[in-house]
Structures are given as structure tokens and as C-alpha cells.
């Protein structure tokens, strides 16, 4: 009787559909996957180690570079953790702008997801369309922070500066047209027979397995678990906003696609509510021990300059204790765990990246399917190697 042997095939780390430097070692029986072994760490920059040697304010620019497709979400999680540690209250205007930017970031991250996911499966038009819309979000980033990706805009206690006057109109115009664009993507994909063939029934993971393996965010909701940190363990003032949490049924790639599309529509609604709530006021908390002074005071008074210099060079002493802050980042639960032993630097800063934990499910979701389906699974997990490797 003839026997067959499995074949080992290397995929990545330089491979267009692995979304960065991800290397997968596949064991194949013909074209059917028997085993997937991910190899990660190619982008390891030691962010957690570096953070132990920096003051709390100095760590913030490192966090942009984790999930570089959603920099403001990373900033938000980190500053919320520090604010919890220092018990700082944030002014209402800063809180509202943070939520507007966090939701625009969700849109931006999901736009890159739909673009790359569709491109991987062969729908190039969606890629071009989605990157066109992402450009507008990048322009809003540039308008308020001066940078398109590494924004470093939020500060402990508020924002680095107030937003310019054009901000409201620019954001408002964008979320007016965005639902129409989402209709365009749906028109290209939702009933497209090729798209359905590639996504329906692909990468199925049951709700129990999804919770057990630690999936969070849209990947968890796609498996039918009604769980959203913004609603269930609310933070940053999300309890004042109304939004729906979409949930999938069939636990497959197509349901996760539907969940993310509804999330984008809901993000537009949250941004609209935020714009309606936006009132003039201060954007930095009045707690001089912790926060930077406002820029006008730094430029126009010697006391302000000294204050700025002191915070920038020495930071602030934190109380002893440990806090964990998890936020609903576009890709799942992004957590920051700070251990403080007193002093101006954390004893330990642990970043709980959603992509790292979600990527672990790749083997469970793809064993028994074809290599081409694995590409769809990588796309649907929506990973970013910057935060996996840190």
C-alpha cells in the first residue's frame, strides 16, 4: 500500500500576506494544513524593558509604535493606566476629544484591515478605496498632532494641546460621507460569490474555545460572545455614549467581517455624539504635580517654563501600587499593567497586546483547511506585528 508523507513549508517572514514579519512553518498533507507553527519576535524592540528606564511621560511615545495602525488607541490605554495610578481627573473637553480620536482610530484600523484582508483574498478595488478613506483620518491626525502615524497627542491628564478650529468641520465632513463608503465596500464584497466562497465557513472557532484561547475584540464577538469593554467595563467616559455591539453567529470569517463593518458604522455614530458634546474648556487637568503646564504658560512665563522643565526632566513620583487598565482597542483588549514601587519610573510596565493573544488561535482556526484559507485566517485575525513583538 502506498504511504504519504507530510511536507514542511516555510511561509514568511517576508511574505505579502503575513502582514509584517510573521513566519509560519506549515506542515502539509498535500494542500491540507496539518500543523501551523508561528515564529514571532522579528520586530522585538524591548519596549517593556525600555519603559523601566523612562519616566511616565517619556514612555508615551514608545506606545505609538506598538500597534502602529492604531496609535491613538495605544496612547489612550497607557495614559488611562497612569491616570488610574495617579488618580487624575480629566477635563470634559479632553475626554470627548479622546473618544472622538479613539473611534476615528478604530475606523482607521478597520479600514486597513478591510483593505488588506480583501487584497489577500483577491479583491483589489476595496484596497484602493479603503486606503483613500484612511488618508482622511491620517490628515486629521496630522492636523491635530503634526504626525500622520506616531501621534503622541494625548497626555497624562488630558491632551498635549487643544485641537485647531478646522477640526470639527473636517471630522464632521468625514463621518458624513463614511457610511456611504461603507455601503460601497459592502456592495463589492457582501454578496460577491468569490468573497463568500472564501470567507463563509472559514476559520471557525466556537464561543467556548474563543474565550478559552483568549480571543478578544471583533474576533471574540464574531464567535457570538456579546462582550465589549467600552460597554461592559466602561472607561474614559464611554458610558455617556449610545452604541450597539454587533455579534456574529456562525463564528466564521464572514461573521467577523460583518461584525467589523457594523463596528465601523457605530464608530461613526460615536464620533457624531462626541462632536455634539464638544464644549469649549480646558484640555489639561489642573494637577501641577503630574501634568505638563499649558503651552501658553510655558512660552509666556518663567514659572511655566520651570514647571515644564521639571516635569520633562524629572517626571513625577508615583504612589506604590499596581494598576491594570484594559481598553477595547480596534484589535481587541489592549491592557497596560503598571507596577509602581514609588519613584518616577515604573518598576514594571506590562503591555497585554491583543494581536499576540489572538494570533495564538491561528493553529486552531486553520488546521484541516487549505493554504489559501490560512491567508484568510491571518487577515481575519487582524494582527499587527509591532504589538505582537513589542
Amino acid at each position, binding site marked *: 500500500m502506498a504511504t504519504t508523507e507530510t511536507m514542511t513549508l516555510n511561509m514568511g517572514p517576508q511574505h505579502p500576506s503575513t502582514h509584517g514579519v510573521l513566519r509560519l512553518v506549515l506542515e502539509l498533507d498535500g494542500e491540507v494544513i496539518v500543523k501551523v507553527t508561528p515564529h*514571532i*519576535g522579528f520586530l522585538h524592540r524591548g519596549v*517593556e524593558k525600555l519603559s523601566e528606564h523612562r519616566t511616565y511621560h517619556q514612555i508615551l511615545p514608545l506606545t505609538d509604535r506598538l500597534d502602529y495602525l492604531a496609535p491613538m488607541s495605544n496612547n489612550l490605554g497607557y495614559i488611562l493606566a497612569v491616570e488610574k495610578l495617579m*488618580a487624575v481627573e480629566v477635563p470634559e473637553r479632553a475626554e470627548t476629544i479622546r473618544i472622538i480620536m479613539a473611534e476615528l482610530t478604530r475606523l482607521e484600523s478597520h479600514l486597513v484591515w478591510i483593505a488588506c484582508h480583501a487584497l489577500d483574498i483577491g479583491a483589489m478595488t476595496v484596497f484602493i478605496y479603503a486606503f483613500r478613506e484612511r488618508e482622511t483620518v491620517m490628515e486629521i491626525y496630522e492636523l491635530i498632532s503634526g504626525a500622520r502615524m506616531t501621534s503622541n497627542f494625548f497626555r497624562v491628564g488630558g491632551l498635549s494641546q487643544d485641537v485647531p478650529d478646522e477640526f470639527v468641520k473636517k471630522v464632521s465632513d468625514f463621518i458624513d460621507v463614511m457610511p456611504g463608503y461603507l455601503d460601497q465596500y459592502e456592495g463589492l464584497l457582501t454578496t460577491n460569490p468569490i468573497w463568500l466562497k472564501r470567507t463563509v465557513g472559514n476559520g471557525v472557532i466556537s464561543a467556548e474555545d474563543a474565550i478559552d*484561547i483568549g480571543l478578544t475584540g471583533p474576533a471574540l464577538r464574531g464567535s457570538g460572545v456579546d462582550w465589549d469593554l467600552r460597554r461592559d467595563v466602561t472607561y474614559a467616559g464611554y458610558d455617556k455614549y449610545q452604541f450597539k455591539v454587533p455579534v456574529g453567529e456562525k463564528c466564521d470569517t464572514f461573521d467577523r467581517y460583518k461584525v467589523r463593518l457594523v463596528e465601523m458604522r457605530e464608530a461613526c455614530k460615536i464620533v457624531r455624539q462626541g462632536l455634539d458634546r464638544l464644549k469649549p474648556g480646558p484640555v489639561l487637568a489642573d494637577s501641577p504635580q503630574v501634568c505638563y503646564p499649558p503651552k501658553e504658560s510655558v512660552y509666556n512665563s518663567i514659572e511655566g517654563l520651570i514647571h515644564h522643565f521639571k516635569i520633562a526632566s524629572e517626571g513625577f513620583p508615583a504612589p506604590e*501600587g499596581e494598576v*491594570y487598565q484594559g481598553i477595547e482597542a480596534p484589535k481587541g483588549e489592549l491592557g497596560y499593567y503598571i507596577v509602581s514601587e514609588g519613584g518616577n519610573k515604573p*518598576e514594571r510596565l506590562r503591555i497585554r497586546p491583543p494581536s499576540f*493573544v489572538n494570533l*495564538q488561535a491561528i493553529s486552531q482556526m486553520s488546521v484541516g483547511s487549505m493554504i489559501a484559507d490560512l491567508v484568510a485566517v491571518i487577515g481575519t485575525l487582524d494582527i499587527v506585528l509591532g504589538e505582537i513583538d513589542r
Partner: protein
Amino acid sequence: MAENNRAVRKLKEKFAASILDVAEFRGEVTVTVAKGSILEILSFLKQSLQYNQLTDLTAVDYLGKKAERFMVVYQLLSIPNKDRLRIKTAVSESVCSIPTATQVWATANWLEREVFDLFGITFDGHPDLRRILMTDDWVGHPLRKDYPLQGPDREPYKGRLS
């Protein structure tokens, strides 16, 4: 206060001897337990108290600050009860190992590999304990406090003006 937390009460009833400390800071409850009964406590929390997701597993190095050098930290989440709990257990440098939690939550697999890689703590019974972020032939454990920031065999950075 922390003592009134449902999970803490149940834990104290069942594992009185193993609960070393209960602390609350900024509304977050942390329970420090003895290493010997960590697996029973984690299984009990999952089976009986519905902490069905292991959000995070990490370690902290208290070199020179505490008698037992490492602290392994489990962040638990209960989706049905919308509740978080942090469990900690000390691991000494001389017996640098702890039972694996992979049987309780599948998530623990990679998280424990990361702690093994960066702190050098061994997880007994782990199905696949290899380095995950550093290369297989790497020497040392970068997140240990005695591992130099600039890396091995390099002069420490003394600042731009020195």
C-alpha cells in the same frame, strides 16, 4: 473593601491557609497566594467562580527588593460577572519554576512561553516551552533586572554629553 469581594470571601473559605495577602488599590483586588496551591486556586476560580478568561499572565522581577525574587501575576476576567481579579504568587530564584496553567486556560501557552523567555521562569508541565520573542540560541533573560538595558557585551550609554 477587598474583603467583601465575592471571590475573595469564597477563596478565604476554601483555601484559608494559602491566601497570603489581599489588597485593594484603585478599586482593583489583588490576592497573593502560596505557590503550592496555585493550580487548585486557579481551577477553582475558573470552575466555580466563572473567571472564564485569562486576560494576561506575566511576571515582575523584584531583585534585591523582596525575599523571593519573582512574582508571577495572573489577570483574570469573568465575562458573565463583568469582574476582574488579579492573582499573584511569589517564585524564588533558587526554585525558579511554577506549575503551568495551560490545563486551565489555553491562553496560558504563549503567555507562559513569553515569561519563560524574558524572565527565565520554568513552567512545569508546559506542552511546548520554547523561547518566543528572542531567538532560540539567545543567552540570558532580557526582562530580568540584572540584564543590562543596552544588551550584553556593550558599554552602557552614558548620555550625549559624557
